[in-house]
């Protein structure tokens, strides 16, 4: 039964199998990376679709936790024809796939009747949380800091960190919560998700970190002290927002 001619370790072969199941484009390729009999290849394709549907169903349910009180449960998206089309070319765990499903979910829920004034902000928040939950792809660390694959910094017109507990307890949302906040969404390599409120200076450091600038060059570009930039970069790396090899 063994494949004695293979030079790869068995562990490397397992990675080929995992990648094949995760990546629909590989399964459609004219030359398969796996020596599967046609019947087994067909089964592998079914299993891959099953895994992907399950994966996104789970992340949608966990990420769109607040909007479900006012609209359809986001995870019902995976039962729609549009999601079947997505499965045909999805790369499981990639940032692109997560972004696409997150956008689909937000569109899916936008049509909620009698939307509240904070509705689109809430959906944007949950969509970005989902992006963290559904992305396992990592970027290769470069010499200078760069954003992680799923890290995003967005301005909201409602104070989501204060609004979410109100939604959880069912209390009415006061107009006083209409306050601008800038939130940074990230995920560590261990899978811990952070949503942190950041000030303008921190947001500027994050946005200037594009893998081409050193810490001192970032400090110069955005007119902040090198000490502050160095400290902020370290904090952003710690929460998985930035990646660097140095």
């Amino acid at each position: 039964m063994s494949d004695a001619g293979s030079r790869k370790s068995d562990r490397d072969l397992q990675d080929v199998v995992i990648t094949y199941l995760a990546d629909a484009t590989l399964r459609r390729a004219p030359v398969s990376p796996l020596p599967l009999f046609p019947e087994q290849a067909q089964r592998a394709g079914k299993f891959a679709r099953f895994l992907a549907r399950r994966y996104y169903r789970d992340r949608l349910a966990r990420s769109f936790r607040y909007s479900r009180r006012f609209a359809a449960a986001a995870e019902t998206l995976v039962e729609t024809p549009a999601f079947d089309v997505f499965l045909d070319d999805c790369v499981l765990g990639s940032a692109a796939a997560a972004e696409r499903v997150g956008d689909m979910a937000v569109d899916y829920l936008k049509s909620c009747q009698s939307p509240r004034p904070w509705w689109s902000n809430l959906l944007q928040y949950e969509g970005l949380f989902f992006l963290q939950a559904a992305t396992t792809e990592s970027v290769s660390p470069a010499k200078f800091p760069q954003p992680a694959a799923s890290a995003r910094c967005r301005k909201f017109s409602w104070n989501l960190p204060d609004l979410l507990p109100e939604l959880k307890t069912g209390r009415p949302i006061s107009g006083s919560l209409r306050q601008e906040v800038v939130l940074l969404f990230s995920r560590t390599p261990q899978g811990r998700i952070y949503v942190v409120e950041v000030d303008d200076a921190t947001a500027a450091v994050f946005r200037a970190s594009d893998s081409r600038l050193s810490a001192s060059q970032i400090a110069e570009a955005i007119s902040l002290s090198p000490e502050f930039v160095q400290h902020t970069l370290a904090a952003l790396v710690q929460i998985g927002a930035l990646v660097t090899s140095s």
Partner: protein
Amino acid sequence: MPAMVEGRLSIGAFYNPHLAQALLQAAGAVDHLSMADPPESDDSAFPSIRDHFPLLLHDYLGQLSDPLSQHALARARHLQDVYRGPWVAEHFQCLHTQDGARTLDYVFPPLYTEEFLSRFVANACVLRDAVNAPLVMENIPGFFALNYAQMTEAEFLRRFLDQTGCGLLLDLPHIWLAAHYSGRNAREYLADFPLPKVVELHVAGVAEDRDLGGPWIAPTPPTQEILGLALWVAERSPGLRAVTFDAFAISLTAETLLRSVEATRAAFGL
């Protein structure tokens, strides 16, 4: 913290936080709870749950095809310190690539080869020592066949258990599915499994899945066929101590969970 029942099988379920109150009200009907996830920081019911039920660590601790990081070992040790169960469970699975870039995020077995056997043996011993508790390993079904295997699943498990002294957590829906998709009878499929090493059984239902075009595990009550298989295995497993209804899903109702535990108790004459 209560201890596992002695002198008879413990019949339990997985902790589903949304069913915490129903579980507390049903204390006595459910002997133990398995923990698939750590309690959330805002899970106000968990302290009571921990006071009322023996807890079994059944989280994802890491894939034993690869060395566990110090972070993963510390996390496992912490969880076991919280639960203090009589054993800790992990799975015969390999679902992440080595660089972490791709994951299947769900049950997927390793290639059954000498290399993987060595890797699992070495890494399981490290985990067992880190948590300072007996380790039981759960079988994982395959859905399609690859040409790389050097031994059967049964041989892989038997040799692993012989080399490590670990116990076997036999997931019967997994066995049923592996048998089904290889065109065999479940009892025939189990013929070479190391049943004397079984410490815990998982039971659950199965349902049709549209992607697979066939059955898969579902958060539904165990079928009579699964319960019959559980009895058949129990007769061959002198070390069996617990049977757990294996379902955790937001869609699971208290009624289904309690009915499933009750059906399992009845099947074992308890």
